[in-house]
């Protein structure tokens, strides 16, 4: 009887305890996705590729804003975007230096994981996807080499020089080209990498191959205005509206804003590859070789190509140009009657737009030069200056100008504090001594209505040409 009673108690206790499953308070479920849930699954590469595209958008947000500020393209009138870069005061403890190094490393490590873990484990993966993974890793190397003086390749290890990053980029672009030989993107990327490494022969050859592959080639980084990231530079150029914004050099006024709000849900893309670049490389090679006639033809071809590119007409009245009366420093030309001149040079008309009416802006490529301007060029230096003006105009708001100016960032303070292999030399920037720190300086006299004049203190393209022998700039010279 006793046994039965004990058995009954045990049974009842077990019955009662069964309910504990319903009340287990320690059961928590991580709603996030962890690495184990994606590696080795079919189509994981497709998801990873979208991640890389998003990282490209994030990386370009960093590249573009500080990149454009560190040039004569844009001046930061009063925003919370970087102001030190505007004056070429580039220090290793600047938060933007760290943010950009982080984004480039994130892009590279993401592509690395894609190449080494995701793609091999994905039964549905294609060669074209692997080529794109190599392209993205190569692009991270390319940006590292073009923007930084030195930067670690292996996380936590010593910083390696820019040239080694460019060489790594070339290896990855070659791997991509081997997997997808018809793709103009990889050829154009190789042309750009060779160009920056000063390898004129390979750069010109790959530029030619790219034009053959696709004579109108374009590659973009897209933003997601709804889910983010949206375009930071667009924000700086146009969206911030009445608070404050970045203002272009008045001679580039007709090109601004290249990025604008297409709609409430669509931001402008960034053109990171344009076939114009292949022509520009070829023209520069021709000038370097003394083939000015060839350069003349190529540069006119560029003008023709640019003429085929899309424009957009939109209301830019909120952005405006003139700021408060109390901050006359920032008053800028905003009427079509205003002329613009570099100090000591002839004034040019037609460069300034009236923003009270809808504006028409070239959103891919634009240039102020016409065939007659090219025909008027005489010397090699004339050609070089015009070519670099073309590069400046065509690449405006695409983060390319600072590379042409030879500016190189240091390794960031955060890297230095957390990585014992960083040297004292790594943490200093390289800014060519011949660059004026007030590249954006202008004077604007609006006292005579209909005859407003704006004078730009420095013609930076002329300065570049004057210093063409400097290793930091004009790689074919």
């Amino acid at each position, binding site marked *: 009887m006793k046994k039965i009673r004990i058995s009954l108690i045990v049974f009842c206790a077990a019955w009662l305890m069964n309910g504990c499953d319903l009340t287990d308070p320690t059961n928590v479920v991580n709603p996030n996705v962890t690495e184990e849930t994606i590696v080795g699954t079919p189509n*994981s590469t497709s998801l990873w590729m979208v991640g890389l595209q998003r990282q490209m958008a994030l990386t370009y947000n960093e590249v573009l804003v500080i990149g454009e500020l560190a040039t004569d393209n844009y001046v930061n009138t009063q925003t919370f975007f970087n102001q030190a870069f505007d004056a070429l005061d580039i220090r290793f403890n600047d938060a933007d230096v760290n943010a950009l190094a982080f984004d480039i490393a994130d892009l590279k490590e993401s592509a690395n994981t894609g190449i080494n873990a995701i793609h091999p484990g994905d039964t549905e993966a294609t060669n074209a996807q692997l080529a794109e993974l190599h392209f993205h890793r190569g692009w991270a190397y390319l940006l590292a080499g073009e923007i930084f003086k030195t930067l670690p390749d292996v996380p936590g290890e010593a910083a390696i020089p820019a040239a080694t990053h460019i060489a790594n980029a070339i290896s990855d672009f070659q791997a991509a080209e081997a997997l997808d030989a018809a793709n103009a993107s990889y050829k154009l990327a190789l042309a750009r990498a060779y160009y920056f490494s000063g390898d004129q022969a390979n750069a010109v050859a790959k530029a030619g191959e790219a034009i053959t592959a696709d004579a109108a080639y374009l590659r973009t980084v897209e933003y997601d205005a709804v889910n983010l990231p949206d375009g930071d530079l667009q924000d700086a150029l146009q969206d911030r509206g009445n608070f404050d914004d970045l203002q272009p050099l008045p001679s580039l006024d007709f090109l601004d804003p290249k990025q604008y709000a297409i709609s409430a849900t669509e931001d402008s893309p960034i053109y990171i590859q344009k076939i114009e670049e292949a022509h520009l490389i070829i023209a520069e090679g021709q000038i370097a070789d003394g083939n000015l006639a060839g350069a003349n033809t190529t540069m006119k071809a560029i003008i023709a190509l640019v003429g085929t590119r899309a424009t957009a007409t939109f209301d830019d009245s909120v952005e405006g140009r003139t700021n408060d009366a109390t901050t006359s420093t920032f008053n800028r030309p905003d009427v079509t009657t205003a002329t613009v001149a570099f100090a000591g040079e002839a004034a040019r008309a037609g460069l300034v737009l009236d923003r009270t009416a809808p504006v028409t802006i070239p959103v891919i490529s634009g240039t102020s030069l016409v065939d007659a301007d090219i025909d008027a060029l005489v010397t090699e230096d004339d050609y070089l200056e015009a070519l670099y003006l073309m590069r400046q105009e065509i690449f405006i708001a695409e983060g390319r100008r600072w590379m042409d100016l030879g500016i190189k960032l240091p390794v960031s303070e955060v890297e230095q504090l957390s990585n014992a292999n960083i040297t004292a030399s790594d943490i200093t920037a390289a800014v060519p001594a011949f660059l004026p720190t007030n590249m954006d300086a202008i004077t604007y006299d609006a006292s005579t209505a209909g005859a407003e004049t704006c004078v730009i203190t420095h013609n930076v393209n002329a300065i570049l040409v004057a210093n063409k022998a400097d290793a930091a700039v004009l790689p074919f010279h």
Partner: protein
Amino acid sequence: MKRILLLCFVFFTAFAFSALAQRTVSGKVTDDTGEGLPGVNVVIKDTTLGTTTDLDGSFSLTVEEGATLIFSFVGFESQEIEVGARSVIDVTMGGAIELQEVIITGQGAGISKNRVATTVDVVSGADLENKPLTRLDQVIQSALPSSQILMSSGAPGTASIVRSRGIASAALSTTPIIYIDGVRVDNLNTASQLNVGTGGAQSSALADIPVEAIDRIEFVKGGAATTLFGADAGNGVIQIFTKKGTAGKARFSFETQLGANKGTADYFKYDATGDIVFRTGFTQTYRVGASGGNENVTYNFTGSIFGDNGFREGIENQRYSLRTTINASLSEKLNLTSSLGFVKNNFTRLPNANTSFDRAYGIEQGLATGTFGLSTNIPSDWTADDINIVEQLISDVARTVDITEVVTRFQNSQSLTYDPTDKLSIKGTFGVDYRYSKAQDITTNEYLIVQQSEAPGTTDQGSIEVAERNFLSTTGSLNIQYQESINDFSFITIVGGQFFRNDDRQTEINATNVVEGSKSVNNASEVTAEDFIQTVTNYGYFGKENVGYKDRYFVDFGFRVDYNTAFGTDVGGQFFPSFGASYVVSNEAFFDGLTNVVSFLKLRGTYGEAGNFPAPFARAANLAVNPFLGGTAIQPFVPAAPNLSPERVKTTEFGADIRFLDDRISVGVTYYDSKTEDALFTAPFAPSFGLSARQRNLGTISNKGWEIVTSFNVVKNTDWDVNLNLSYNTVENLVESTGGAAEFNIGGFTFLGPFVTEGLPLGYLRGAQPTFDESGATIDVERNTDLGKTLPDFFGSMTLNVTFKQRWSLFVTGDYQKGGFGVNTNEVLRFFRGLDDDRVPEASKGVSFFDLGGVWVEKSDYLKIRNISLAYSMPNEWFNDIVKNVRVSFTALNPINFFAATNFDPETTGAGARTQNAVNVGGFGYGTFSAPRQYLGSIKFNF
């Protein structure tokens, strides 16, 4: 027929009354000095009938023949008196019992304060009774002598900074965890993870903890005193006990409070700002209460309705609250307490602080002349036309803005206490707190056009943002207390276990290109959504032994072992020990001769550990998954952290409590030395890793200081009772180590904000310090340098309480801080608009503001009088005893501010915490309004 029934009723009624032979007994209850004692319970024995004495100590009661009355009052022995044939019974309550205050929080169960070796701050119900305040953090602002409560914004229901003993964590808000009747409740005092972008008006869960029903608040500071809360209490614990009612006839109260609100213009640079933006707001509060019961069941009910139509057009708040607590003896040994509360809060908000849509602070910062058609952006130079334009703008913004938040909250707590013997007590508690909030921001095209953000005629920029948060916290605990005395030794043994689980689920919906006029996200061209889920369970067991010898030597040992679902997978139970000793010197025989001067002396010392658990799921190798251009973007995010542990706050404190001259002067002195080890730092990895920062056990933070709390009974006689309380607290905070990690930002701007780095106080302001030469030109810039710390060197509070003839009372509170720094962010923005003062010399006006950071850092010293209140209790004979007591009071809130900064409120901070429940060190005087001046009149009836 109807008439016959009526006659029968009258007959039976008359018969019933005659059979009971009732009559009225009245009298007066006094203490042994002859003073009338108000509030004495007078209950007819073996019934639920009774009353309480009025302010004079008088009572009147209808009794039956042969009844016995029981007179009871806290602090006196109860008396039973047979009525007999008397109609007047005067009673002198003698045998005053020397009450020893009992502390519950941090002790596992109730324990006499004398036996406790740590400091515990207590706010009694009587302290709260006459404060016309409506939210918890305001209530404790001057009542906790060693804590600071900084109201980050004057907008109703917004977040505050609550801190004591410096900043122990770089990972968490300094707000202590909060328990109500033993149940952990939502203490979120920052914006939620998903929220609408109002630019800093961040709603706080502290705003919907009703204050009407509070009987008592205990606050124990983090570390030594909170060991029994384990991995959850590094920042301390506030425990609220609700009123349970006292036996006796039902007592009712009704209170009406009406008042005017006027925005504080003290911190504005321009008079025009206050003139244009502020209006006189109107507040109204209605409270009802009922309490009573018998020997077996007591109850307390409170309800209130509060309305505030705002000191600015567009800021409103309505609140409705109910709470009922019932205490029932189920048997001689079994007792049940049940408490249930409900609160509903409605807010309307305006954009402020960190948004360019804050047009009110835009006035202070220089509205763009071209944009708004003003002749100048200098408000002091505005013409009548300019003022009209700006008034119209402010009015149009208020008319077209549509930002609302609704909060609904239920709390309950059930406790069952079983006392099988006098020595053994077993208590189980279970309860939940559920808080739902929905914030909604409807941005119409009209609003954007009014704001001059979009061109007139725009039709496709309207948007709706909705953020919902569902928070459910469940708490269960079981405590067993055993008391034993052997000869001169007394033992209190406590063992128990506790768990809580927090489920935090949030959803945010964004709709763009919304059809004008729609209030639904359905009427949009594009709708996106995201969610946030955070679940954590903490569970553990604890024990504590408190040993007393001869009622003057006490030692205690305690521990808690905690498990938590947020700990790394390789981290098991975490052991938190504590040890303390106290010595009541004044209980020694040799002290007898001194007691005329020193009436009480206790020395105490303790060491204890408590923790803060890591962020839920931070331990996992999480990938970042985001929608992007119609696809799913998966990216590496953070690596796994199997060893992620709680940070440990280890505190040693020593102190003494001394009372002089028959307790008329009391002084408490405490020195604390607190060290947070394995501090959770969200420090960046080296950027070459390309990995996002996540919590790591990297740091060591120390906080040291003195806490001196004094109380003076300046005058006490039959007419006057004057009490003055003053406190002085020092804090020395230092980040001793960052574990090799680089410094990191925890708020503000990156060019000028609070950072964490080795060798400097947590949240020191980092920025550039320029040096100007005689001509005013900038000759040097030291970037990323230490511009000052946000924590003050010392702070404290003061309270003056004057009572005259027990009818008049004057109540004044205030607090102060000194030695900290803050950023005058308004002045930074004025610099952009050319409205700056002369701090940047003319020759340096062209220098980037990034390099001028140091010029905007100012002292954040202040002394603020928070409350001046005058009350009068009317004699009840004025009302022929129909109403037991009528109390009328007039109060001025926030009447006087003294501050060192040029023109910003060092208390407000527009920057807010970076993420949900993140640390906020304050120090950013920025675009948000200070707590308004309020002038309140209230009248309270007790029936």
